[in-house]
């Protein structure tokens, strides 16, 4: 009896390990250079006050990603594929263009993250950026899906550096507990803006495309879906823990000392006198890992979704000559993203502004399309959303859309 139970456990675990990957990778990429900067700022400027907001953000992340994963498993098609088939070429092309623009902006930000994190270790950006662009490019062009996924999963492990640096910063655990149990939100423009920023960096359109595409590429069967869902939930949970540790690290040090920061690299530098050089180095290393990780996934995801929607050959298992548009787009994004950082006096803030605004326009469209698709009986059969889940997901989407709208307005206004 017990033996059987253990064996079943083991079998379940092995199945999960086989299915695992897409959800955890997608969520972790979410903690990219932009995300870490936002969390650092949230911690440095508002202490532990905003820690609780990560919990509803996690719930939203799980709801949205679960739908992507389910659509991938059930239909076996990517999201842009489904959008093209359901909504026609016209809206698809404009939508893909929008995502392309916002992702290009994000790729630039990732390379900026690589440059600034390595500058902390006294490496010139003229060495670090071209080198990392080449490494990232080779990884995908020469790799196949399985090897690439393994590298990505390995990169996920390095997020533990944030947890260690959080512990090194000796936070006040009791205060953290209270702030989680008794959430507070003052409606000061600064704090509200920060909350919107937290949500905005956590839920981005490319994630739904990437998650669904990699589930399709893994060819996960419907009967294994529960493992895939666990993968998504676990991924969202990990990302929230990491984000939480970044906030509390900065809260325990920078906030106490009254230091204001604008980027993740600022935060890493400011940590040095306050929490010691190891804490600072770990923080910077985490930023490097996150930026590199996102710099390889974002262009990949973009190339995937554009080619799929346009009907061009795609996939990391193809050779360059078999899928020229796919590799062309991928290379363009990697090398342009890296090159921009090397230009003297780039208006990085301007670039990010445009990218965020486009992101805010694209996100509602993607989310609403997703909800329409996931509710289609023709596509999803018995796996379409249930009534309660549907209400929950529409509310989530409505809140996200409202917050993103506010986020854009805060930028523009």
């Amino acid at each position: 009896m017990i033996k059987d139970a253990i064996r079943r456990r083991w079998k379940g675990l092995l199945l999960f390990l086989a299915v695992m990957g897409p959800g955890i990778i997608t969520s972790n990429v979410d903690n990219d250079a932009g995300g870490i900067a936002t969390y650092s700022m949230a911690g440095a400027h508002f202490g532990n006050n905003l820690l609780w907001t990560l919990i509803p953000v996690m719930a939203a992340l799980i709801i949205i990603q679960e739908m992507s994963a389910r659509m991938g498993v059930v239909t076996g098609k990517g999201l842009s594929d489904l959008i093209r088939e359901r909504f026609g070429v016209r809206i698809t092309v404009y939508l893909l263009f929008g995502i392309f623009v916002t992702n290009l902006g994000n790729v630039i930000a990732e390379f900026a993250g690589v440059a600034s994190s390595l500058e902390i270790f006294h490496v010139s950006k003229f060495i670090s950026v071209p080198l990392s662009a080449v490494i990232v490019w080779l990884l995908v062009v020469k790799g196949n899906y399985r090897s690439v996924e393994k590298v990505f999963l390995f990169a996920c492990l390095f997020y533990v550096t944030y947890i260690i640096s959080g512990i090194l910063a000796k936070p006040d655990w009791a205060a953290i507990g209270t702030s989680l149990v008794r959430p507070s939100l003052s409606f000061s423009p600064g704090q509200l803006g920060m909350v919107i920023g937290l949500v905005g960096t956590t839920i981005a359109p490319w994630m739904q495309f990437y998650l669904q595409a990699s589930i399709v590429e893994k060819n996960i069967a419907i009967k294994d879906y529960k493992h895939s869902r666990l993968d998504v939930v676990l991924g969202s949970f990990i990302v929230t823990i990491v984000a939480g540790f970044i906030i509390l690290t900065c809260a325990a040090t920078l906030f106490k000392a009254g230091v204001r920061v604008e980027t993740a690299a600022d935060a890493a530098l400011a940590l040095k006198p306050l929490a010691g050089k190891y804490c600072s180095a770990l923080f910077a290393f985490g930023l490097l890992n996150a930026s590199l990780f996102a710099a390889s996934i974002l262009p990949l995801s973009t190339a995937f979704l554009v080619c799929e929607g346009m009907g061009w050959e795609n996939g990391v298992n193809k050779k360059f000559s078999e899928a020229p548009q796919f590799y062309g787009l991928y290379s363009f994004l990697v090398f342009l993203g890296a090159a921009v950082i090397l230009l003297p006096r780039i208006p990085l803030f301007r670039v990010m502004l445009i990218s965020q605004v486009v992101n805010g326009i694209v996100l509602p469209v993607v989310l609403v399309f997703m909800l329409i698709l996931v509710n289609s009986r023709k596509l999803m059969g018995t796996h379409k959303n249930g009534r309660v889940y549907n209400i929950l997901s529409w509310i989530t989407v409505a809140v996200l859309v409202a917050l993103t709208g506010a986020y854009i307005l805060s930028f523009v206004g």
Partner: protein
Amino acid sequence: MHDDGSKLFLYLSDLLNRPISDPEGRVRGRLTDLKVRLGEPFPRVDSLVIRRRGEKLARVLDWSSVETIRGRSAVLKPGAESRLTGLDVGNEEILLREDLLDKQVVDTHGAKIERVNDVHLLIAHGELRIAHVDFGLRGILRRLGWMRTIDAVTDWLFSYRIAEKLVSWKCVQPLASDPKKNLKLNVTVRKLHELHPSDIADIIEELDRANRSSVFRALDTETAAETLQEVDPKLQLSLIETAPPDRASDILETMEPDEAREFLADLPEEKMESLIGTMAPPFRDHVKGLLKHREGTAGSIMTTDFLALRGDQTIADAVESFRNAIHPLETVAYIYITGEDLRLAGVITLRHLLLCDREERLGALMNPHVLMVETDDDIATVADVFNKYKFLAVPVVDRNLVIRGIITLQDIVQATAEEL
């Protein structure tokens, strides 16, 4: 529409949403789709799907009620509106917008999956037919309404225009829009049979799961068996598992017994048992015999297609049994000779059959120094034998030296390739 002798090409994207008007010129609705009956090389549009003003439901109008479709609006014949019916799509019919436009199809000429950007139609003899399918960038630009601008720019800059990429309908295999419930595809999937099984395998790998099994289901058993051996190993199992049991066993029976064994050995036990149960007896016994051997041993990769005769038989007997053999050539390159007790005693080759007298006894001609492996030997040992002696095939014997099968060069290459 009546035949005025003229011919005209037009695109589906130009026709869709075109106003529909009555003979007096009043606009009555819009064209939302075209219904086509498949089967002919260039299928004919047999009705229009229209949406009348203020109505939600789509209505269908037979092509014979159309006066003309040229110009800015399609004009109906008098009284056409009384012949409107509800929308009903039959088994061999498709809707061009709903089932074809923006969907994936198989281009059997290029042997790959493409997305339909537009459909190229031809009006001739008063009929509207599908001529080509547009897979090109130009089709996308046309639908976005950017074609003139882009043409002007590329003309001015490079004296170049983005080329059309039209493929004849003859080379286009539509896929089912709802493969779960369709029978539609089975009737029309025959275009896929023009493809080489390894191309079909590539296409199946690209498809989504539902289309994958419905395309696989539509192949004849022989093509299915060849295709199955070409697809990615991870897919092989799911294809065999989702096929109905008697079809799955039919497919396996068209393979060599040792290849069929490979598949069965990887399946869950219950599935394997039920498949073996539905197989025809001689094949079943072969496969069962093979399945007894442990994975990774000579017995598990050997084939039981071989020629063995007794030493007291003659060349004439050997020629006769060679004639009757339907096995692939590599398995009959050697003819094995057994003694009274069925033990392997020697070997003759095809050369003996051609050069020796018909009356000569095999026992006298054979080479008694025959190299053999045991059923329990592992694959590496067998591979070493092939490496060293360069045989086309090696006999496999049991502990009593009775011949049980042979391993061909092909078998060992495949087995070692899988281990890598």
